[in-house]
């Protein structure tokens, strides 16, 4: 079984400046989604990692964990969905404003065995199969970052949304399957309904817990390796407060420092 990759402590707490933050999605009864771009002088990020973000002029106490959408030449991008007060602020941050960032934090998607690789080859898996990247809603962000550094022949991207899709522009359309719950684009329904794990050498997924649970089950049945990126409330983001516990078969793990990416088979889902 492939191990999730733990990275060195090359990280920093530094202010950055917002250079753009356009809202790309808005729907009644849901929060807005924006693409937050920040110029930042810290070290490079890897797909799957996240930052703790907080505007200097903020009405909340803690930073909020947000996955890296892209990181190139000193520009960090994030896909931010408004949920509560903290994420709303991030969506409303304006160009020119100062934002403080701690990161990059957490582990990355496991090293991806190519067609000659061995680490993903379990019983019955064909080494020439592509990877499946499965994102639900805002959960597409850490997978989009991964897709950008992969050979497009080597993955298929599945993206599920409640309604209208967003953020998928960077993906070649032949690689992409979209599903929406209201049928407003792509397939009507949920991603797990349109997706057979057996066709992939491994599945990487991020999104709402029920989706991850279903995918983990489907992958287990098909004996396909599955890695999921989990969300927990976080205070420190660095493993110091023990607030973001993920229960696993090996005992408690810290979502921020031991994750956020875990082998699905090890995770004990709550109730």
């Amino acid at each position, binding site marked *: 079984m492939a191990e999730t990759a733990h990275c060195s402590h090359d*990280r920093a707490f530094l202010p950055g400046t917002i250079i753009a933050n356009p809202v790309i999605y808005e729907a009644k009864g849901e929060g807005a989604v924006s693409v937050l771009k920040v110029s930042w002088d810290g070290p490079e990020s890897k797909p799957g990692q996240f930052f703790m973000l*907080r505007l200097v002029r903020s009405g909340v*106490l803690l930073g909020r964990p947000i996955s890296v959408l892209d990181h190139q030449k000193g520009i960090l991008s994030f896909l931010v969905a408004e949920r509560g007060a903290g994420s709303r602020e991030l969506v409303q941050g304006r160009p020119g404003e100062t934002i403080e960032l701690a990161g990059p934090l957490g582990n990355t998607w496991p090293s991806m065995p190519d067609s000659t690789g061995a680490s993903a080859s379990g019983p019955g898996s064909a080494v020439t199969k592509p990877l499946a990247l499965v994102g639900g809603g805002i959960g597409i962000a850490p997978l989009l970052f991964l897709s950008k550094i992969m050979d497009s022949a080597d993955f298929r991207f599945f993206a599920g949304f409640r309604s209208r899709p967003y953020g998928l522009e960077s993906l070649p359309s032949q690689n992409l399957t979209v599903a929406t719950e209201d049928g407003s684009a792509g397939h009507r329904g949920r991603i797990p309904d349109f997706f057979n794990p057996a066709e992939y050498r491994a599945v990487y997924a991020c999104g709402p817990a029920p989706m991850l649970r279903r995918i983990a089950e489907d992958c287990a049945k098909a004996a396909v390796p599955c890695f999921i990126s989990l969300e927990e409330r976080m205070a420190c983001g*660095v493993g110091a*407060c023990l607030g973001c516990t993920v229960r696993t078969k090996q005992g408690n793990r810290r979502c921020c420092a031991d994750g956020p990416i875990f082998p699905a088979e090890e995770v004990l889902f709550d109730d």
Partner: protein
Amino acid sequence: MTEAHQSARDQTTSTQTSQAPDLSVRIAGLVLKNPVIAASGTFGYGREYEGLIDVSRLGGICTKGLTLYPREGNRGRRLHETPSGLMNSIGLENPGIPAFIEKELPAMLGLGPAVIANLSGSTVEEYQEGARLLGATGIDMIELNISCPNVKAGGMAFGLCPADASSVVRAVRKVSSKPLMVKLSPNAPDLAGVAQACVDAGADALSLVNTFKALAFDIRRRRPVFDHVTAGLSGPAIKPIALRMVWDVCAAVQVPVVGMGGIAIAEDALEFFMAGAAAIQVGTATFPRPSAMIEIIEGLERFMKTEGIGQLSELSLQGKY
């Protein structure tokens, strides 16, 4: 004791120059190179923040609360943000003192700051055995936690009344010659009484406040946010109350008092020194701004320089109001 402490100790005897104010403080015989200490439970075992800040610059680091036996901590939600505050219900998750000594302590002793072991337990005997094990190590001080609101047995129970506090402090004092600081609960009905009882039982110093017993409901799910119903409140929200308690305890006892509760910037720390604290701890403020403690150290230095203060203890207003 690490070399860093030794050199800090030497510094206190050197005369103060106008260039670099002397921030060193002496607490229970231990000299800290500066009075800024990472609060227990918010700084792991000292290495978690490496890369984000220069950890070696801190005056001291309190470990996560340690118990003789390993603990899994609490189930369910563990964190909840409130206006300028943080509620937590970690429940003293820790690997147990033997595992701490073997796996975490060696690296921690090499970091530079004084190492303060935060010790908890369910019974007097468990506290005592923990103190015995820690006493045989290179830690610089024991912080006796009789104030954790998030565990069912022990913890805060000992900190709520003078008699219980006295018994556990006396027991630990008996088996350990390490400097002994006792961490008080703001939830104690008679805080000054508990403080005095701890001193009478042999505490070399006191620290306060631990978190306030607080409550939050999840209105969507119509149940308490936390499985244990109540949880501990920390952060800037509590600062004005914590400061008042530190003021009261400094007036009540003669030993050094380490103040904490919501300190986020140097100005907050200065208020605690004005209340009579000998040193301060910073917890929650590190989460949103890992550099908070470093900036506090620099801010204290700047303030001492501009105001021509030789020792932070000069700031104390105890006895004047």
